[in-house]
């Protein structure tokens, strides 16, 4: 019976990370609009957008190759498999054990690799500019992220997320300088990886400032729907990641009973809403950076991550 329960929970989690991302996006946009004194679209608008895109007949550039067609499916598959590995409301699920945090980052890197290639496939200058900048940002964000992983692995003695979450929920953690540093580093990396302000503006179509939008410029219809869903899923993934590492108390173990699971799921929805609110507040209060200021911004994350790791290497107490 325990196994069946676990499988059901796993199924709920898999569909959850598939269905909730547009809601997170909708909430963020709604709050952002309210902060700007606009009414804003409904929080369910992203679902409608995705459905509309899905039903439309896609237009394909004339010299697009098979890679261009296959890329959206691959991007979606890589992102979904990464998102499934992150505990959302329950920990210790079956799939969560098969790979660790390093593998999650690598799966996201694989999705980005394919997306950047797709951007270059048609042979337009905008695709190239997007791919080139995306890879530059990734080249700086990834080492910072790895430093965060190192810090967590040193504190919790593991790179498996369920073990990290269990350790962070226990009383053994305490307040640590290195945790604070890695939290800030993780926030910066999350902003950069998801193409949010101040690194990239998800709402703009001003050619010379965009990164993500430039890469997907040639996509339409169901292909675009898949890519948009994948990028929303990536945002959800980072929110879940931050939630599971730094606010792990509401997570339940897989054998925790149904009541606890439902409660934990509601808490998770609460976390998502809060994250959307914080993100909206942050984005409305800051301006986008010039592209070549972004490396400095990300280097701050790298340095904080490195400092956090060094502190731990020097002494277990920090």
């Amino acid at each position, binding site marked *: 019976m325990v196994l069946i329960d676990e499988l059901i929970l796993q199924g709920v989690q898999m569909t959850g990370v598939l269905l909730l991302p547009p809601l997170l996006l909708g909430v963020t946009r709604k709050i952002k609009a309210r902060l700007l004194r606009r009414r804003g679209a409904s929080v369910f608008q992203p679902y409608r957008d995705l459905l509309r895109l899905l039903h439309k007949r*896609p237009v394909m550039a004339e010299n697009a190759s098979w890679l261009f067609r296959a890329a959206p499916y691959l991007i979606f598959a890589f992102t979904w498999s990464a998102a499934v590995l992150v505990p959302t409301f329950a920990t210790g699920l079956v799939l969560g054990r098969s790979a660790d945090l390093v593998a999650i980052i*690598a799966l996201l890197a694989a999705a980005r*690799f394919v997306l950047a290639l797709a951007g270059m496939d048609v042979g337009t200058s905008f695709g190239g500019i997007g791919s080139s900048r995306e890879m530059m940002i990734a*080249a700086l964000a*990834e080492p910072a992220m*790895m*430093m965060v992983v190192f810090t967590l692995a040193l504190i919790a003695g593991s790179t498996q997320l369920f073990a990290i979450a269990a350790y962070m929920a226990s009383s053994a953690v305490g307040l640590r300088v290195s945790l604070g540093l890695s939290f800030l580093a993780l926030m910066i990396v999350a902003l950069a990886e998801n193409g949010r302000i101040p690194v990239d503006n998800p709402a703009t179509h001003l050619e010379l400032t965009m990164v993500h939008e430039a890469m997907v*410029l040639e996509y339409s219809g169901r292909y675009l729907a898949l890519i948009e869903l994948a990028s929303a899923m990536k945002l959800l993934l980072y929110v879940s990641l931050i939630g599971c590492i730094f606010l792990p108390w509401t997570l339940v173990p897989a054998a925790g009973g149904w009541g606890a699971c439902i409660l934990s799921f509601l808490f998770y929805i609460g976390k998502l809403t809060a994250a959307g609110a914080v993100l909206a507040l942050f984005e409305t209060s800051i301006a986008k950076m010039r592209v070549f200021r972004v490396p400095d911004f990300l280097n701050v994350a790298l340095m904080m991550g490195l400092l956090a790791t060094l502190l731990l290497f020097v002494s277990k107490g920090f």
Partner: protein
Amino acid sequence: MSIAALLCCVALFIALSLLSAAVNRLFNATIIIYCACFAIALVMLWGGVVHLLTHASDMTIVLPIGLPWTGAHFKLDALAAFFLVVVNLGAATASFYALGYGRHEEAPHRVLPFYPAFLAAMNLVVLANDAFTFLFSWELMSLASWALVMAHHREKENARAGYIYIVMASFGTLMLLLAFALLSGPGGHYVFSGMQGHVLTPLRAAVVLFLVLLGAGSKAGIYPLHVWLPLAHPAAPSHVSGLMSGVMTKVAVYGFIRIVFGLLGGTGEDGGMAVLALGGITAVMGVLYALLQHDLKKLLAYHTVENIGIIFIGLGLALVFQADGHAAFAALAFTAALFHVFNHSLFKSLLFFGAGAVQTATRTRDMERLGGLIHRMPQTAFVFLVGCAAISALPPFNGFASEWLTFQAIIQGPVLTHWGLKTLVPVAGAMLALAAALAAACFVKVYGIVFLGRPRTEPAKSAVETDRFSLATMSFLALLCLLAGIFPGVFTSGLTPAVHEMTGAQMPQHAIWLSLVPVSAVRSSYNGLFIFIFIVLAAGVAAFVARRFGGGAPRQAPAWDCGFPLDDPATQYTAGSFAQPIRRVFGGHLFRASARVEMPPPGSLAPARLIRELHDLAWEEIYKRIAARVLCIAERLNRFQVLSLRHYLSIVFFCLILLLMVLTLWF
């Protein structure tokens, strides 16, 4: 298979080499020679695999050749068996690939005689069990590969590459000779087992490590000894480039492991730190150089430098863990290094073969002149994509599995007690992460510029798909890359005997679910098979849903490009423009990169010019200075050439006196 049989195979290689010197102008010589090489390499590969998997005991043999009073000693142990597998897998695939590729060779008589000799030499290095045989084979390997680099010697660039290569190779052999001299101890042992016996003083051990780093490191391509590598590897025909980059650098790694782990018995913490730091620097510098390259094969050669760096990070970690008494962690780091040796030999051969196919189809290696090849060469494009993903350390391919293991070894760092290491290990981790991320950027550039987009020149537009032999070889390698990524546990458990021999411990074995488990399952594990299955299922579900509920088949239309599509392919992003952000972020200090616009004065009709500068600091600050100093000394010594007989006699006389004085003072 006994060692005598393996040596017979090597003898066959040499016989083949002599034979091909005689018959190489015959009509079918190319096919016969490569077929024979393929068969012999397969036999040796089988021997290596069987020895490794059956955990067979060591085999030794002494042949009455070589130095008259010692003979030539050979030994097959687990480490040698593993490297036999790497060498002969590379040799077999390269020979099979050459069955197709070699037909385009304009001067086969310059390639055929040296190719089997090169294969024989690499196998001999791995089997050698005394210093003389080792150095002899090492030098044979250098000379044979030098001859292959010089195959197209009329091109000026190749002649320069060959010159630099031969200088660096001789330098490396000299350093190894000195290292062996120190290792041989007071007894003057030639045989490796005799060298293992005695303990060196710390100073001598440090000097030996330094000499081996110079000797084996210059062959492997450690920064800043890598300068010959991006020149020589592209100059050779592509199957030889693949062998030199994918396999010969691994033989150099074998030399390092054999001497430092086997004969020296490990180094202290300081020595391990030096290896670790060098590995980190090599990894990052290699990939940065690669990003700034526009020559496809040169770029791949620089990536070899990067991967050698990753391997040396693993070896350095193994050394420091060993010095600190953590045998299990040393085994983890060593496994990671060996696994990466194997993986790199797979995908680097694949990528070089792909580059060879592109070069044959378009007659150029300059990426700025290619583009859109995915339409003209779809199968090559597909397997090349697998190679790109594997070398960029992306799951579910093999490059990720071995780099993941290296990361896990780094995470075990806090058990180390040395203060320097406490700072160095996390920095090495950051460098490894940076190298992996930059490698992904670099291969987006390679693939995006060469295979995607629109063709930039006429040859790229009219390229045709490569031959069946090349495609079969590349597909086989791509399949191996995937298999080693999905079942990493199977491959690492095959390495166990070699790891155990060198570190005295091994990684935990987890047959269940084929997971890769560095220390214990609670701390971290990676299951490539699960990930792969999930990715395939997810992509399948997405494809099904999108097709089922999506709005019909796609419609063809001109590219959108924000409403301003331009017909000229020159408006695409180029390799240079793709790398520009990274060049700007990293190039400022490391390459003194600068770009300025020179505006004409007002009223002048001259165009404005963008002037870019890039400096290879390793070349300019080290090699050019040494070359200048050598020339300067030669200039001064020139004076001794024009003296009279009287002067020469007096010089001889004074030398004699000096020597006698030294002798009297010495004893």
